[in-house]
């Protein structure tokens, strides 16, 4: 546990010291949100209807940048190897990194919400519910994303490979998050929010345990 906290502290500190990168990723996500509206045209009703989907697509695209960055510093000067030789528990390293990525993506998603509200007129009074969905969805992206980032950081063509591996995998999480977000924004007359949130929780539980289990094999030499 103390190893996990130390790893988490290290990753949060790293993220804090490279916070200008996070700002750049946020601007990337915001400009993606801006571009989606050009794909639809100035149709206010349609934009509002698809706002949830656009928010998650922007976050998904931005997340590949954030996730890829998260292992960059571990690879330079064999930092990860050094940590493993300490010896640090690989699971503690994984969960530290994954939780740090989860926090980063949550922050990113929360920061993109006002952009979505302004651009698509997709406001909602149910802010805590929306934040909860963002946390759950960000967890769905960060668990497999952290694992795949650990692999692709050591490979050529990493910028292509990470989305190639991650995008098909997170389809259920994306579907659950988009549906739940849309229900929060547009109203939920049929009471379906619980079912989609349940799907998100199930996806998160499965991948947070499975990825932690196999991470050791990915970083061993």
């Amino acid at each position, binding site marked *: 546990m103390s190893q996990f906290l130390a790893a988490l502290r290290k990753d949060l500190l790293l993220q804090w010291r490279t916070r200008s990168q996070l700002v750049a990723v946020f601007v990337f996500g915001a400009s993606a949100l801006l571009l989606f509206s050009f794909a639809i045209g100035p149709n206010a009703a349609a934009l509002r209807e698809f706002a949830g989907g656009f928010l998650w697509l922007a976050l998904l695209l931005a997340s590949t940048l954030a996730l890829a960055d998260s292992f960059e510093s571990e690879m330079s000067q064999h930092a990860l190897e050094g940590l493993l030789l300490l010896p640090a528990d690989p699971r503690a390293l994984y969960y530290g990194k994954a939780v740090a990525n989860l926090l980063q993506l949550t922050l990113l998603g929360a920061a993109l919400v006002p952009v979505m509200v302004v651009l698509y007129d997709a406001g909602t009074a149910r802010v805590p519910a929306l934040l909860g969905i963002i946390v759950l969805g960000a967890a769905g992206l960060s668990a497999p994303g952290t694992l795949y980032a650990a692999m692709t950081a050591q490979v050529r063509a990493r910028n292509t490979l990470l989305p190639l591996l991650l*995008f098909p*995998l997170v389809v*259920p999480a994306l579907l659950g998050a988009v549906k739940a977000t849309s229900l929060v924004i547009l109203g939920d007359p049929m009471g379906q929010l619980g079912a989609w949130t349940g799907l998100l929780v199930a996806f998160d539980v499965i991948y947070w345990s499975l990825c932690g289990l196999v991470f050791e094999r990915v970083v061993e030499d």
Partner: protein
Amino acid sequence: MGKGGWPFAVAGLGLALLVWGSIWGLAFAPREQYMGDVQRIMYVHVPTAWNALLALTFGFGCAVAFLLRGGWRWDARHEAAIEVGVVLGALLCFQGAIWAKPTWGVWWDWDPRLTTTAVMVFAFSGILALRRFVEDPARRAVWSAVATVIAFVDVPIVYFSVNWWNSLHQLQSTPATVSSAFHWPLRINAFGVLFLMSGWIWLRARLAAERLEGELAPPLGGIELAQRQPLGGTS
């Protein structure tokens, strides 16, 4: 027959069965009442679907075996099974589109099985790309095995989630829902594709094993090659 000929024999048997079943299905089986001749694509579509899933399941089994027990043979089989599974999965999508256009009026529909198949094909294509980009054979084997386990676990979740999202596909066909006149060509083709697939995986695993042997061999060959072609020499 020497040991090397068996996969060819299995694939040949599969091809022969496939030709037999397809001729039966195309020429002698009765026309389906509502869909007409379009329905005859079922004789290859359904066997392709079964065997694509079977190949990927076998690949998953090989990945688990490699992770738990090691052994390069499992890595070679894993590579072969995933590759054949992706080819069959892509074929499945194309056959489905050909069938769907005249029947449903669209090439594609977001129904659970189509969507799951597409996601599956993309997920496992990504793993093939990963294998292509990792040069170290040990890392390649472990990473792609891990990725296969993760992707395979995803398939039922994708199916389940898309099922909630939308549904239109025909219900699964069972002998009870298919008239006996359609059984035989379907069964023959199912075994045809099964044998063809097994032969392919077998041959492809052999190729992968040969490549692995070269990669894992001590770099003596490299030294010889360097001696034969000194630096700066023309090649």
